[in-house]
């Protein structure tokens, strides 16, 4: 399947009160996998929230997802338009069990595509065993599976994942990467926001690097892996300007 543009971000501005966090970010996200890399505080999570319609931040500019304009739409419309969200820190509901996290998803959404409660449990058998456990008592890896699972139940065409590897042990990160590969093979596009260079380059060939609210560099996984200086400058403990 040849890549096509799935998300067209044009001059996206985001503000928290008076703080201007995204400074006219423009990017074209193709179907398949794209990774956004950058250090903390560069606006990556703000980008996810802005795309998902969550306020704050306040946003301006344009984000087109197929026919739909996302800026100005509330999150539930954006979700219904076909975008799934796996937030940073998982954000499970502390009053809901594993099973309830899945059952609360609207039937209309879970019936519109391939993903059903059963198929999510098939994908993550570990969750099925713990279906009556409160979501917040799951292990870190299980929590991540649940966060992915409930997003899948909305049957998205594009999945926005904000630091899915954060706080997970290496073997678990490996499983998350495998899961993402499965989803890509199913035809779901991924927008992966990461600090983990390994995860990002393992999944995505197209890489965007963010620096203070803008895309500072568009590159490929291969090129980034080959250039240690760029890695340190944008991602590591190194000054970005003085060199």
């Amino acid at each position, binding site marked *: 399947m040849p890549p096509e543009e799935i998300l067209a971000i044009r001059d996206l501005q985001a503000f928290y009160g008076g703080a201007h966090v995204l400074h006219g970010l423009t990017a074209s996200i193709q179907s398949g996998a794209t990774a956004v890399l950058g250090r903390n505080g560069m606006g990556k*999570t*703000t980008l996810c929230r802005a795309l998902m319609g969550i306020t704050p931040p306040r946003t301006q500019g344009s984000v087109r997802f197929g026919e739909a304009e996302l800026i100005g739409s509330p999150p539930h419309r954006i979700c219904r338009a076909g975008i799934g969200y796996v937030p940073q820190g998982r954000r499970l509901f502390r009053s809901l069990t594993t099973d309830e996290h899945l059952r609360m998803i609207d039937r209309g959404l879970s019936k519109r595509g391939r993903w059903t409660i059963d198929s999510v449990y098939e994908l993550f058998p570990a969750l099925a065993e713990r279906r009556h456990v409160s979501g917040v008592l799951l292990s870190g890896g299980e929590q991540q599976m649940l966060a992915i699972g409930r997003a899948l139940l909305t049957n998205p065409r594009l999945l926005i994942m904000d630091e899915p590897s954060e706080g997970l042990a290496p073997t678990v990160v490996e499983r998350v990467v495998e899961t993402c590969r499965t989803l890509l093979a199913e035809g779901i596009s991924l927008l992966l926001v990461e600090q983990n260079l390994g995860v990002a380059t393992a999944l995505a060939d197209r890489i965007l690097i963010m620096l203070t609210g803008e895309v500072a560099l568009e590159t490929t996984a291969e090129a980034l892996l080959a250039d240690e200086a760029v890695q340190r400058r944008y991602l590591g403990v190194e000054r970005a300007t003085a060199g």
Partner: protein
Amino acid sequence: MASSDGQGNGGRAGATPDRLPAPFPSLAARLVGGGRTGTLVGLALLAIGASWVLYQVLQNGLGDTGNVPNFLIITLNALSLAGLFFLAASGLTLIFGLMKVVNMAHGSLYLLGGYVAWALTTAGVNWWLAVAVATLSAGVVGLLMEQAFLRWNLGQDLRQALITIAVSVILADQMLNYFGGTAQTITPPGELGASIGLGVYGLAYPTFRIFVIGAAVVVGGLLWLWIQRTRFGMIIRAGIDDGPMTSALGVNVPVVFAAAFFVGSCLAGLGGVFGGTVLALAPGQDISFLTSSIVVVIIGGMGSLGGTAVGALLLAFVEAYSQVYLPSGYAPYSMVVTFILVAAVLALKPTGLFGRAS
């Protein structure tokens, strides 16, 4: 909100959460060390009160001439009062838990429900039908208020409280107009209007008050099932935990808010029907029940159904027992005991017994 929420994003998406009560442990909580010691102090206060009541009850023996028969009646009175408090307060706490709105018109909806049922039964409508219509009309008025005024002011909690106060002023005056200033009582249906033998000490007790206790238990149980077992209940709990994330999963949160506001208002109306049957309907009852509901949730903790039940029981028992069992001559000071109850909770656990810091 989750601590991971938008961390480290420049600007204001901070990791420093806005938790006012937590960083400022109350003086009393610090004196007794809060936590477990606070619980012990609370339990000790309760134990002292309970032993005093027991002593009063048992000092003249268990016989017919002793204090036990009276005690049983007072206890049933306390239970039916707790039932009323619970019915009135559960709607308030549901609305607050989800929307962070303190509905100061809650007492007006209570009174409205009562008056509608009174008007209907007086006109000869079947009592059960009148209950249903009264409950729904309180719900509809609450929903209209939410849609007309509150929806636009989400997050401005003080403004919302003032709006609901204004609405309660208007409703109170309109009810005075339509239903007059004299106290009215709803006549219970024939099957509930009599008294029922208790089978001990030859005591009888109004059937309707027993019915109120039962109704509170049933309504509480249904609410619990609704919140714990249905998809809508799951969405409500999710919305309380993390509204934006719930929305990002395709849930139209404003619609959920409206539905919850409707249900909460219905509960106020239902409470009014029972209150109007057991007690009376009169101008001022709106404020009185608003205050009771608020005291219940201050004690039990905002947004917790179990806390509301415990708060209703504590308040009703303290009110009923202190009027009878305070040393002779001190009965008029029974409100002091209520004050001590509220003050102790505020000093030891400002968020209420089962409340959690947001």
